[in-house]
């Protein structure tokens, strides 16, 4: 399955958002996830299944003015 994560194409074997976060070693606290422009709440990471062509954005809080 090919998906886009933060603008980069990725060959993913992950079934769910939760699996993807583990594969990417992404912290869970203080981040937010979008799947095809819709926010995925943390409570739904384990039940949100990835599909071919999905566009995923994972964002974090960083320094800014």
């Amino acid at each position, binding site marked *: 399955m090919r998906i886009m*994560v*933060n*603008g*980069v194409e990725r060959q993913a074997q992950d079934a769910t958002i939760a699996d993807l976060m583990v594969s*990417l*070693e*992404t*912290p869970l*606290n*203080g*981040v*937010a*996830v*979008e799947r095809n*422009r819709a*926010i995925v*709440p*943390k409570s739904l990471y384990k039940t949100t299944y990835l599909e071919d062509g999905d566009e995923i*954005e*994972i*964002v*974090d*809080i*960083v*320094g*800014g*003015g």
Partner: protein
Amino acid sequence: MSNSAISERNDPLVIAGRTFKSRLIIGTGKYKTYAENAAAAEAADVDMVTVAIRRVNLGDPSKERLTDFVSPEKYTYLPNTAGCFTAEDAIRTLRLAREAGGWDLVKLEVLADQKTLYPDMEETLRAAKLLISEGFKVMVYCSDDPVYARKLEEAGCVAIMPLGSLIGSGLGIQNPVNIRLIVEQSRVPVIVDAGVGTASDAAIAMELGCDGVLMNTAIAEAKNPILMASAMRHAVLAGREAYLAGRMGKKRYADPSSPLAGLI
């Protein structure tokens, strides 16, 4: 009014029912390290810091994170929409911020072009209305146009944040007359956001009657950011006290301070 110094007096900044003891808000961008940033926040003695929302760095999961240095337990995070040029981009960013950390007190900025980073006021007002309808408490970066400032307040923004001068320019308060007009007409806090270059700029903003000052580059790009953070803390306190004290009238000619009576 009490005669005691402001540091001993209860003079908090209240935004959307939330109380902050410091009237200085600082950004968390452009510092050499997050550790330096944390030390500057300490020296500035602030309660609130602005933060940005960006893609996670997937190539380096061990990268340092802001939250480990400038703790959201200690400081109120004010997520911004820096880099957004449309209302839709700004709303998307702040929805993500709310999901990431539950923050609903936000700094809205919708910019017009890269060269000036001047706010696009038509788009800013549209974004503000949409965000407020979604329950966000919007502190809004805006031009120093009193008419748009009034429209933003009428739309329900919880703080009006006019620029002193362009973001990151350090050119100070370029239009004190307009800032004063905005202060006089506003019933929500007015916070000068952008343009402060050095301590006197912050003091001038406060002497004009602003409720607070927001700055980033003036501290982060000072030769000694920690010392400048301390200077800004004092400048905001001094400017606030001078405003509350009420300055003397300006005169065209000298007025001796020593008595004329009894002169030999």
